[in-house]
């Protein structure tokens, strides 16, 4: 049994390196409350890297998966219809019509300046 009264709570620390990057889980720390957790987070886990933002989450608020539930994550590798590789034949088709296929690289470039 616990010999000492525990007053610390477990906080999960997330951070992002730059404004554009996604949050990433770093580690967990013990703190009495979230303000304390926040002032300790950066120096405990990100002493040598740039940090653009930090989230603190009390571990009790994290809904985790158990071993049974993790079984729901597996699936068959037969879902080409969700991926561009299921439509790979289009490149050849367009060539027949003397047009270039609009692939991922081309489409994602449309956000830039008009060439």
């Amino acid at each position, binding site marked *: 049994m616990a010999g*000492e009264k525990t007053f610390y709570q477990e906080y999960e620390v997330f951070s992002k390196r730059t404004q554009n990057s996604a949050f990433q889980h770093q580690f967990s720390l*013990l703190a009495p409350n979230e303000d304390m957790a926040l002032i300790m987070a950066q120096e*405990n886990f990100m002493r040598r890297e740039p940090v653009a933002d930090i989230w603190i989450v009390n571990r009790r608020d994290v809904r985790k998966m158990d071993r049974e539930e993790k079984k729901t994550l597996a699936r068959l590798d037969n879902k080409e219809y969700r991926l561009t590789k299921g439509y790979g034949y289009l490149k050849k088709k367009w060539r027949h019509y003397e047009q270039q296929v609009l692939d991922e690289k081309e489409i994602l470039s449309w956000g830039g300046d008009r060439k």
Partner: protein
Amino acid sequence: MTPIHTVTDDELLANFMERIEAGEKIEADDWMPEEYRVTLIKLISMHGISEIMGALPEKEWVPRAPSLSRKLGIMSKVQDEMGHGQLLLRVTEDLLLPYGKNRGDLMQDLFKGDLKFHNVFHMETKTWADAGIIGWLVDGAAIITQTNMLKASYGPYARALQRICAEEVFHAQHGESIIMALAEGTDEQKAMIQEALNRWWESLLMFFGPASKETTGSSKQDLTIKYKIRTKTNEDFRQIFFDKYIPRILALGLTIPDPTIRFDEESRLWTYQQPDWEEFKKIIKNKGPRSQARLNLRKTSYEYNAWVRDALSATVT
């Protein structure tokens, strides 16, 4: 109705060993055999508390470091040691959950002498060169054992070690930089490193633990290998240490304080003078030169400011 199949412990164990063999990572909430949990707790709590106690001998040199940049470097290094302690104690605390134990209990175990710390951190430091030797060779030794566990079957430990090893690279260079300055310095400075090396050599050999349990009566290396926490033996580690560091020690014009040490071409192994393993047993039972003083330092500060932890318990919502 189909009868529900209750999974037996044997099946759980078989499944667990299959996962480990397949290179899967075990996580804190996963089922694990008691022996695995206990092995991990012993290993990681000792590793963690050794970082915390290991901060103390180097910390002795923090205020005394001989320049502004050395003061900054060693402060940051000792901070990292405390940080490693934080990571490892967190991993241990999550493993202790089923036993209802927490960090406070770990500290009490340390004070009672039930939780041991590494032999090197029981030793005295006498000069600035000791701070250099600790950074260069003690951290070098630690890097060898820690990198071997980067692929440990227990995910949280492997992830903590990823962070730790990345920082150890900085520590090793911090130590090398102190040693290099002394090695290229005055005669007094050179003598200072040789004396420090002589002082630390036996402790460095002991750091890796006995070659087999016959030497000291117990060793946890068999279990850690069985559960794929590590792959190499204590003696493997010591040999790697010799491979990596003996040429560097000699290159700086230092002498290994063991006239018998030599590399045997046939076996590709170093033969060397064994450290006094009886002394090792005494040291890790907190009977080393600075064991009690450092425990006292840790305990006094922990208890003297206990009111802070009590006060903040009032803020828990």
